């Protein structure tokens, strides 16, 4: 198989290296591109960076997001209504790249967005806009040969997901195609803010960490919405925490008061990042 060291995107790898030297888990923050509009997304991202996020995940809205719950569905729907396109979404990445040259940016979207114009073409365009990798929740490894090959030629990370019911054997197959980091879906379910997690989520993290070892960082996402969720996940082996719907909810709830929204996002992200700094010890 491909050698891990040659895969993996430099900006992502450097960031994780740097954080592990500081004994910190990474905080990855997700926004829907163009929700509520493109200029505001740019401002939101500035607040997220100020709050201390380590990696930015930009969701390119898709009409039929089957892995997403009501929060991200609604945000995607509104963004599409407002005329947000994949191209405009990539402009957001370009913007980040200018402002924060070393901040990793990954795109989360659905396979059809790439398929429509061709995977290779879309990834080239993304690369030009400073994107570092892709998360495609409906891309199963069986269908991914061309995608992985073309991405690795462009030095773009292909971030695959593992779920609580993924067997160790299948996880190996997933890891063989994954670069940047592996994304553990914390729950049986779709995206959406949760109050609490069951024990099986922590078991899933432990199981994945055990197989992955130090081969690549293990990120955990889906439903995480408070610093109290983060600590046990880090103890179970998470190297990175992904927060999405909880941020999108703040944006929705405060869409009438941008100043307050930006402030609250910054404070929220800072609290999350604080939880990522504590309790993180190298295994």
């Amino acid at each position, binding site marked *: 198989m491909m050698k891990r060291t040659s895969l993996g995107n430099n900006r992502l790898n450097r960031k994780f290296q740097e954080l592990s030297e500081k004994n910190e888990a990474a905080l990855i923050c997700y926004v829907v591109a163009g929700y509520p509009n493109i200029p505001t997304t740019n401002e939101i991202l500035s607040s997220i960076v100020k709050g201390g996020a380590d990696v930015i995940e930009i969701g390119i809205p898709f009409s039929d997001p089957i892995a997403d719950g009501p929060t991200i569905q609604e945000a995607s729907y509104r963004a599409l209504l407002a005329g947000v396109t994949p191209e405009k979404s990539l402009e957001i990445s370009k913007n980040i790249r200018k402002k924060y040259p070393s901040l990793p940016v990954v795109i989360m979207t659905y396979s059809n967005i790439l398929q*429509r114009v061709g995977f290779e073409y879309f990834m080239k365009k993304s690369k030009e806009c400073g994107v570092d990798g892709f998360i495609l*929740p*409906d891309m199963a490894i069986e269908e991914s040969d061309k995608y992985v090959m073309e991405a690795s030629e462009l030095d773009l990370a292909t971030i695959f997901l593992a779920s609580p019911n993924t067997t160790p054997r299948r996880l190996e197959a997933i890891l063989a195609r994954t670069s940047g980091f592996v994304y553990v879906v914390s729950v*049986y*379910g779709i995206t959406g803010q949760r109050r609490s997690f069951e024990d099986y989520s922590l078991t899933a993290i432990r199981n994945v960490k055990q197989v992955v070892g130090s081969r690549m960082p293990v990120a955990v996402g889906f439903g995480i919405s408070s610093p109290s969720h983060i600590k046990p996940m880090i103890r179970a082996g998470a190297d990175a925490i992904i927060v999405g719907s909880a941020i999108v909810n703040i944006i929705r709830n405060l869409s009438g008061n941008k100043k307050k929204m930006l402030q609250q996002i910054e404070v929220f992200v800072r609290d999350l990042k604080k939880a990522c700094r504590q309790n993180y010890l190298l295994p």
Partner: protein
Amino acid sequence: MLSNYPVNARFGDYGGRYVPETLVPAIEELERAYDRYKNDTDFRKELRYYLEQYAGRPTPLYFAKNLTEYVGGARIYLKREDLLHGGAHKINNTLGQGLLAKRIGKKRVIAETGAGQHGVATAIAAAVLRLNAEIYMGSKDMKRQRPNLIRMQLLGAAIHPVQSGSRTLKDAINEALRDWITNVQNTYYLIGSAVGPHPYPVIVRDFQSVIGQEIKMQMEQLSNRREHPDAVVACVGGGSNAIGTFYPFVDDSDVSLYGVEAAGKGIKSGKHSATLAAGSHGIIHGMFTYLLQDQFGQVSDTHSISAGLDYPGVGPEHALLKDIKRVNYVNCIDDDAAEAFLLLSRLEGIIPALEPSHAISYAMELAKNMNRNENIVVTLSGRGDKDVDVVQRYLKMKEKKNEKNRKNEKK
């Protein structure tokens, strides 16, 4: 041979399995179970028992004498799937998959529905097989197919209205997939058409192939000359009644096959569901296939007078059969389907569902240009009780339009 597809989960380039990782173990479990039971004597016996004693198979291949005389061309036969319990071909699939769910040991069954026929058929199968059914239905479809909504409730199924997107079949499938991801450990997804991730398109095709197999046998008996029909016609939504009709004939080159899509208000109007006529390559609901979408890959809103054809994708096997030109994919607008609906009702005393009315309409065109000694078989996939309100409203609207036109002419 075409009947050997799929190969490696694909029909040519089409099909595959584009699903979130959480679903992979369930889909693999389904594939193993299907491989094990499809040729299992007990399974087949039980399925046959329910199909014959409960659902009413075999269905007649009826020579539509009055329609044939009216058109004045080839002889038109109707494959009477409308006579099945529940009123549509959908029960062939729900009994098969229901028995599979039981073998797998999953008692909670979810399904999507557009016209409500698959929802009704799922609710029926769940009741008789002692499973619990929950049905996702777009709120727009709940309004226009209300009789089926009530039937599902009477049959004991729980209904989940779907408010997202276009509030039709596509969105009901999205919601069913989200439910499945969430409850994958105890839930069987009983998909209603030959769509979705592999192996669903195969499973649905195989359970529906009883339609084509019976047509073949019945045609031979009727003709006494081991004759094949000259042409076979079926409507295409997701494509289950069509692939079930076509599959037993795909390697018989003497049989012309016609799949009829819904052209709504006309393909140029953009208000249609003719995926194979106007779609492009895309990934939806776990499969690579033709898709109605915009230049950026966002799935288009579709339209059809019939809720069951109102879908922007199509089964992957149809995508292959289109490319290699084994099947002629044609289409029929709302107005023509409604006219065929009325005509069949009056001429043959059969009220067809609006979905197969598209096929009837096209078959009449086809028959005109064929010889009187040639045979056309049309799959009459369902009965039209569910559509009487829709058609009534349609007629009222049309009457209003005509009046307006008359007034304008006078001026």
